[in-house]
């Protein structure tokens, strides 16, 4: 339970991070809240030679509204996400999901960026970001680029981040009026990763669903954007048949591993139950204003 030895770096600016990453290449690893990385290091499942601590980097923290979009610095902690009333007002699913992550101690240090960039299909934030159609702002020596959350995840701990790049911020387009959001997570106990969880956003206008997005946590090798499930809802009254179709479409793309959370059939079934629950909750919220 003791990590292998490593060099520790504590840059103060984004540019310094970029040049350290360029210099160290594969050997360098950024450290945010440490609540995914350090446990892996203690088990020696991760043995980075260099840790680049982002804690002292200026400009990576905070929540702001920029040109109509919500802008969240990568180093904003999960606890800060929960604390922000403005954010809860604009995009309530973030608080709802963050409250279901781990426990207060972990959330006090764990960051939104670390959760998004980690690449573990068990993380809760990625599916939420897919449902709100967020864009990740990445910085490297070639400058800045953005990648949609829906395109970011490639495999277990494999993401669109190139060597030398890191995540500086997340941008979330302002949710349309009349949108309801919900994140439903089934877990064994507080602090546990999901048996299955589903994030849903949907907007109804005049009783008809104009927008819908469904995304799933921990039921595949990556977080899953359930495109067919999303389109199954659009244009419908989100009635029983539409919900059933969406649930079926969502379950169809799941491919969870059997683990101590349960066998494959259970976890797929649970994904269906959570999807149904999330759609119904989001719908009720959309209708409730």
């Amino acid at each position: 339970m003791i990590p292998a030895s490593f060099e520790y770096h504590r840059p103060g600016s984004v540019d310094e991070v970029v040049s350290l990453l360029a210099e160290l290449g594969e050997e360098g690893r950024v450290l945010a809240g440490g609540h995914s990385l350090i446990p892996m290091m203690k088990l020696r499942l991760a043995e980075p030679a260099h840790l680049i601590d982002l804690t002292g980097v200026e400009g990576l923290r905070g929540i702001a509204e920029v040109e109509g979009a919500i802008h969240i610095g990568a180093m904003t902690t999960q606890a800060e996400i929960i604390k922000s009333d403005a954010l809860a007002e604009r995009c309530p699913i973030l608080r709802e999901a963050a409250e279901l992550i781990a426990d207060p101690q972990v959330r006090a240090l764990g960051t939104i960026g670390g959760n998004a960039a980690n690449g573990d299909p068990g993380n809760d934030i990625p599916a939420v970001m897919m449902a709100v159609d967020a864009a990740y702002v990445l910085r490297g020596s070639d400058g800045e680029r953005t990648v949609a959350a829906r395109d970011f995840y490639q495999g277990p701990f494999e993401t669109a981040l190139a060597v030398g790049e890191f995540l500086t911020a997340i941008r979330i387009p302002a949710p349309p009026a009349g949108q309801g959001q919900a994140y439903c997570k089934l877990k064994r106990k507080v602090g546990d990763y999901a048996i299955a969880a589903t994030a849903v956003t949907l907007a109804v206008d005049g009783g008809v669903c104009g927008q819908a997005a469904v995304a799933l946590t921990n039921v595949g090798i990556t977080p899953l954007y359930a495109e067919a499930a999303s389109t199954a809802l659009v244009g419908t009254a989100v009635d029983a048949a539409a919900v059933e179709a969406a649930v079926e479409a969502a379950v169809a793309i799941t491919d969870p591993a059997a683990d101590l959370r349960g066998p494959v059939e259970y976890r797929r079934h649970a994904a269906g139950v959570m999807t149904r629950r999330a759609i119904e909750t989001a719908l009720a919220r959309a209708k409730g204003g």
Partner: protein
Amino acid sequence: MSETKTETAAEREAALGGIGCDKRRKEDARFIRGQGNYIDDIKLPNMVFGDFVRSPYAHARIKSIDAEKAKAVPGVIAVLTAADLKPLNLHWMPTLAGDTQAVLADEKVHFQNQEVAFVIAEDRYAAADGIQLVDVDYEELPVLIDPKKALEDGAPILREDVKDKDEVGQGPRRHPNHIFNWQSGDKDATDKAFAGAQVTVKEEIFYQRVHPAPIETCGCVASMDAVSGRLTLYGTFQAPHVVRTIVSLIAGLPESKIRVISPDVGGGFGNKVGAYPGYVCAIVGSIVLGRPVKWIESRIDNISTTAFARDYHMTGELAADKDGKITGLRANVLADHGAFNTHAQPMKWPAGFFNIVTGSYDVPTAHVTVDGVYTNKAPGGVSYRCSFRVTEAAYLIERMLDVLAQKIGVDKAEIRLRNFIKPEQFPYNSCLGWEYDSGDYPAALKQAMKAVGYEDLRKEQAEKRARGELMGIGIATFTEIVGAGPSRNCDILGIKMFESCEIRVHPTGSATARLGTKSTGQGHETTYAQIIATEIGIPSDLITVEEGDTDTAPYGLGTYGSRTTPVGAAAAARAGRKIREKAKKIAAHMLEVSENDLEWDVDRFTVKGVPDLSATMKDIAMAAYSNLPEGLEHGLEVVDYYDPPNMTYPFGAYICVVDVNRHTGEISVRSFYALDDCGTRINPMIIEGQVHGGLTEAFGIAMGQEIVYDDMGNVLGASFLDYFMPTAVETPHWETDHTVTPSPHHPLGAKGVGESPNVGGVPAFSNAVVDAFAHLGVTHMPMPHAAWRVWQTCHELGIDK
């Protein structure tokens, strides 16, 4: 000398803080300030750290071990392997169950994470780096995880070291992977009862492998003083005196040269009774290096290697008449003991007190068979917060009663009332040989039913069932058997299972008591002081209780199996009475009257009929050192060794109500009512705390705890991420209650309570879960009742959509 009485007897009684009061725990002042002194707080000058290279395989031959690279790591001092321990004959050690256990794997590994080499370094970091660089070349062997397969003809032989032995300590063997066969009861009479029965029921009931998982893991610091030849061993020991004896036997040092100290211990629950390779390696390391060696287990090591509990594959059968009156019981058990038989029980009891399996019921005849089996799993088989194998027995009988009730269609409370041992039958001799001391089971169950509104709950359940909802009501009316034990049938390494207490009353009226037990969080410093306060009339605040240092405390067998109150507290009470006897002689001298003219009055002796003429214990204490009658020795000091005449039999009536989500399989515990009868109650608040803790553990066991192995013998989920340790969020609210049926043979009438809630809690939860499905024909569901398992039942029944 004579004193005007300003306080009433009741006021003086209250000032003592003795038996029966809710005294706050003395030890909490340091615990809640973070000022406890646990094993990892102990830092000795020049101390070094040791930790293990562990096997990644469950069964493999060790072809070679190369430690050269590890030794080259800066800070690594030494790497011990079996080859190094062999010349000292310490590569294997005897177990408490008559078997032997590898200290460091000798030619073969028998379970995943088995100790293969011990790396000693200047600090933990260097030790961890060294461990990673020890090269072990393994040749994998076929793995046996299922104890049933282990007994098949031609199964791979696990323990080659004992394959030709007829016995490995605890009875006849019939297969190289078989450890023992143990039977209790009358087979012929039982067969007859079944043959003639109007009704029989049978159920396969598995009590899964779990772990006590105390918050503090195991550890030790061994410090050999080369000059004096004295070894000091600090460690997380529930039984420090026994550890000293074992170390003496293994290491060949006289006990007078060994000092074992258990500092504050952060929970034991059975995990800290036995001896582990870490202790031996730390001792050897310290002897060889002449420096103190510390070994501290990680959480993963703790759950995956030291002392699991349960793992009993049971088959229960009941014979009954058509009204549900039990006429016979059969229990067959396949006991998975893992790689070595290291279970910790009184030595004559290979299956502990499993033959308490007739429970609270008047069963005329029974027969029990237990077969111990080796598998490629970690060794252990301790009593996790229960007396020896009692929780398995209670689980079996409490489940079987429900199965029988369902079969004949009577209510689950009613089946119990029909079968209870009646109050007038006590002392009751069970057909399997136990003499139950006292109890009133019907009164307890009726009080419980009234408290929860049992009839209404059943009505509500019927309404819910009509609507397709699942609600379950679980009852457990268990009997524990605790307080090992009488010297005629309880010993460890031949040492009888007595308990001891020494009391010294000091000149100015305070006292120090030392005992052979060891608190691991139960509050002994408080409760013993209360008992002694009542016995000797000195306020409990002025009584310091010390345990856990073999240099100062009298020999005792330690704390486990709820034996502290039945045995240790009896020694404390009797030591107090011996103090009082001498005090009476001194008082007679002080008051110039005959002893016969004195009567005890809370905190003093008073001359009969002359209430104003008295000598307080405070004054007597000073007189013991200053003003003695002729012929009496100075001082006021005694020791008592108590050999209990019988076990005590605490009991309880628990009722649990659950709702089941048929879509997800999640269970929500709506209410849990626990009535405990532990005889005389020494500190009701501490009892309640013990019940809360034990119920929380029972909840963990019933709802999620399990050490799981895959087919390769990989241990899965040995961390708190997976191993279900309930937090305050999951833990239900506990409602506690009590009746008081004193033990007739215990000096205080007390029985012990710490383990009852674990013993009775598990079947109450499990019965509630199964009861939710009873109307659908379900008679048993495997524990733990994790959501996925419950969902599987819903899915099979087609009710999960």
